[in-house]
């Protein structure tokens, strides 16, 4: 009984965290993009730096008319945003926020994360197909083409921490990096840990469909890609999942390469683990925003080129090198 209650509480807590994070991240992204372009960003709504702006926008989206195009495939069209959201939310189950703060410490947690986050693309493909709109379909097909490109280097570079720690459980992966920042995986087996971290980080930018890899929704050529026909609450769901996904990939990078909830130095242990975890994740979220407002969008073939010709061979060699390192050195 108590266990069930705790599970429900954790679920509710996670969902509210996702909502709050999405609201914060949209506001933060607006501010970061504005500051990088010497602008101010939202300033009016809510007083201090326009902090209420995204909440007002969310309310606006929720109050909008629910429009489904007449020739759309209605059941799929309605279902798609929820599949995208569920795929993103599912990953939160195994992300360790703290030493005792994890939804489910699966012994194949890493594998589970890769599997469940790929579900997002099915939702996107559904959205693009059911919209019955050429832009949506283009966006969805590009998304499908993108996933086969970035998912392989992501898988290979996520295997590096697994090889170093000898486990697939997210919690054990964090525990294996405890004791100081020099134990973190991105500094292990130098430079291969760092290389895996960089490749994972870059490929995860493609996973969350952000600039420079935002070709599935490139607004200058595809209107809004798979989300073209969506409006109101369903569009808000896509937006929410996009930012939740942004947190997921950053959290995974923080967990696997930056020591998760463990403190960087032993005497800093008095600060609770979840705070360290959120700090590290937010730093990576900021990195993603920084990249987005720096780089132009890649062409489809350039994305394929980067993923297949650069990330893939390097991550293969990297995995091999780390394996031999662990065999002979570590």
């Amino acid at each position, binding site marked *: 009984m108590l266990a069930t209650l705790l599970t429900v509480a954790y679920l509710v807590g996670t969902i509210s965290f996702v909502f709050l994070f999405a609201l914060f991240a949209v506001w933060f992204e607006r501010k970061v993009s504005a*500051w*990088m372009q010497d602008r101010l960003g939202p300033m009016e709504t809510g007083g201090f730096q326009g902090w209420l702006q995204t909440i007002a926008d969310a309310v606006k989206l929720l109050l909008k008319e629910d429009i489904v195009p007449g020739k759309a495939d209605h059941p799929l069209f309605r279902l798609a945003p929820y599949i995208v959201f569920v795929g993103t939310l599912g990953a939160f189950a195994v992300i360790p926020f703290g030493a005792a703060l994890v939804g489910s410490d699966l012994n194949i947690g890493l594998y589970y994360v890769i599997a469940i986050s790929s579900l997002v693309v099915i939702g996107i493909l559904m959205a693009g197909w059911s919209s019955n709109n050429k832009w949506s379909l283009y966006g969805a097909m590009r998304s499908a083409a993108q996933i086969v490109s970035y998912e392989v280097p992501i898988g290979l570079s996520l295997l590096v921490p697994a090889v170093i720690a000898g486990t697939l459980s997210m919690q054990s992966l964090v525990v294996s990096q405890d004791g100081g920042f020099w134990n973190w995986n991105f500094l292990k087996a130098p430079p291969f840990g760092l290389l895996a971290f960089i490749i994972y980080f870059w490929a995860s930018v493609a996973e969350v469909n952000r600039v420079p890899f935002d070709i599935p929704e490139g607004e200058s050529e595809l209107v809004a890609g798979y989300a073209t026909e969506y409006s109101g609450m369903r569009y808000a769901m896509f937006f929410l999942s996009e930012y939740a996904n942004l947190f997921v990939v950053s959290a995974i990078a923080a967990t696997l390469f930056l020591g998760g909830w463990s403190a960087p130095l032993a005497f800093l242990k008095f600060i609770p683990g979840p705070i360290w975890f959120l700090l590290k994740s937010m730093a990576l979220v900021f990195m993603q925003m*920084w990249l987005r407002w*720096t780089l132009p969008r890649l062409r489809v073939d350039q994305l394929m080129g980067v993923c297949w010709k*650069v990330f893939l061979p390097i991550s293969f060699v990297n995995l091999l090198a780390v394996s031999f390192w662990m065999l002979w050195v570590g």
Partner: protein
Amino acid sequence: MRTSLSENYFKQLWRGVSSTLIGMRVTFGHLFKPAVTLQYPHERWTMPERARLRIAMTYSECTGCGACARACPVDVISIETLKAPADEDLGVTKNGTKKRLHVLKFDVDNAKCIYCGLCIPPCPTEAIHFVPDYEAMQRKRGNLIYHFSILSVAEVDAIRRRDQEAKAAAAKAKSSEAATVNPSSTKTDEP
């Protein structure tokens, strides 16, 4: 000279990485630069004292000569004047020009004004000029017509009535004078 494939590969890789880092350095620098945005309704630029932004005129300086209205290429200025009677002194302008006309109406339609400034040089008394006021928005188009006459409706009516009375008196005097000279002609003149 052809470069080998591997050489090209690593060169391009390095170019991609280094140019990304350069770009990121630039955007990071801009992150801490103060914004150039001006929060308009809360703060605004101070205009130069003599900024030429909107046509205005000093009513007390106007002689009602109509030179500005004639110069206007888009007929924005509409003036109505009445000659002051001989016994009424309207005073002089700052540069000593005697004012002979009542300026009953001096309207500038800002909706049509092209801000060319051609109305300003012809003015003999420098009554019409630019002012540094750029917030000309109005909710109704009619409100864009600026009325520069300071005379009230009652005053305008009074001036008109006095003028008509004077004219009627003059006409009467003239007709009675004509009647004494040639009584037969009055009958044919009247309708």
